[in-house]
């Protein structure tokens, strides 16, 4: 048996993000449930979030973000041979989201699959894409995190409806050239099914449920070692990180983890303030916005950390395209 010829490393060529037009402020939510702008800002750090239109689907948002990343990469659709969509809010059990997204983007007959690692999904998908390129299975991969959490939220439950939001983010992954350093470091990932009951959607008729204190405790104690290990495996000193992009779960979780990783130079993503928690979309959305604003420069190392329901988590260092 012969094996495909692999490549020395993979890198991210471009990012793209998409947010629905509709902005929902804390004051708007406070009109229907017993909460306030001040309470929401102090507990989760969110000022406003984006919510998709009723007819706007996860697939629509994935196509919008994927199209932007593809355009920014300079590749033609024909050069993409694998599409991975990380989502926990797919429209239906079948067909998957990825194949439909690929067709709408004019990508002909790529490998296409959805991946569910909840809020850690983008980092899982990025690792799968990187490994696929390195192994020679794929040449260029379109990785998308897309979620429509608004339809899985009970809008009368003030503990969850203030947090979750909609959006999509994408990255194009490809090989490095022979003399180029790799741009995607080794992933450090894991899970603990013993905590499955801490964040869940029980069935297709149910809404998202979260034990806030338990999740907060886990996130603020278990994850900074994972983040530090990802740096260690990549051979990058946390002190040299240009940015830290954790899943945008809760501003207080973000700040607590950031304090513990020892990266004083790193700009910490806080997109949650204006975007809410968009699960698998939050990391690529945050990074594409930071790149657009010129907050992180091309070639600099940044640390990604996804974590959420499962519970599952994944972290890797990447180089900004």
């Amino acid at each position, binding site marked *: 048996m012969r094996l495909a010829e692999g490549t020395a490393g993979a890198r991210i060529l471009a990012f793209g993000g998409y947010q629905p037009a509709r902005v929902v402020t804390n004051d708007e939510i406070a009109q229907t449930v017993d909460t306030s702008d001040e309470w929401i800002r102090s507990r989760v750090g969110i000022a406003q979030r984006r919510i998709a239109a009723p007819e706007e689907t996860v697939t629509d948002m994935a196509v919008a973000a994927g199209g932007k990343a593809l355009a920014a990469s300079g590749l033609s659709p024909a050069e993409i041979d694998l599409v991975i969509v990380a989502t926990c809010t797919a429209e239906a059990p079948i067909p998957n989201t990825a194949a439909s997204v690929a067709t709408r983007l004019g990508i002909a007959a790529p490998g296409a699959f959805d991946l569910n690692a909840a809020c850690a999904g983008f980092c899982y998908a990025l690792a799968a894409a990187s490994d696929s390129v390195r192994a020679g299975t794929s040449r260029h991969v379109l990785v998308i995190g897309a979620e429509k959490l608004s339809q899985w939220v009970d809008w009368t439950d003030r503990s969850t409806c203030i947090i979750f939001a909609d959006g999509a983010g994408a990255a194009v992954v490809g090989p490095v050239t022979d003399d180029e350093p790799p741009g995607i470091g080794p992933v450090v990932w894991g899970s603990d099914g013993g905590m499955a009951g801490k964040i869940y959607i029980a069935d297709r008729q149910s809404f998202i449920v979260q034990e*806030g*204190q338990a999740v907060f405790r886990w996130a*603020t104690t278990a994850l900074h070692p994972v983040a530090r290990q990802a740096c260690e495996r990549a051979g990058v000193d946390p002190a040299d990180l240009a940015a830290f992009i954790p899943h945008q779960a809760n501003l207080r979780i973000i700040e*607590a983890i950031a304090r513990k990783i020892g990266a004083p130079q790193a700009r910490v993503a806080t997109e949650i303030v204006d975007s809410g928690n968009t699960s698998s979309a939050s990391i690529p959305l945050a990074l594409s916005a930071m790149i657009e604003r010129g907050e992180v420069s091309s070639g600099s190392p940044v640390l990604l950390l996804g974590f959420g329901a499962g519970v599952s988590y994944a972290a890797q260092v990447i180089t900004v395209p």
Partner: protein
Amino acid sequence: MAMTDQEILTGLGEIVDEVAGVPADQVTPDKSFVDDLDIDSLSMVEIAVAAQDKFGVEIPDDQLKNLKTVQDVVDYVRNAEVSA
């Protein structure tokens, strides 16, 4: 070696200062975390985690809601130390 109540109180004051920015000298036994010190449920988790590091005593989430005053935490830490 068991700590005295005063030692636990001093350690707890440092934790509350660090976690919530409440000056340690305001952390007196009769104070309620929520009503007097303006500490919310997430900060209580952070205090519990810091207390575990400092005192070696685990305070699970289901116990946290019973710890309403500073003295409640001092008692909890002291009793857990004794039984440990």
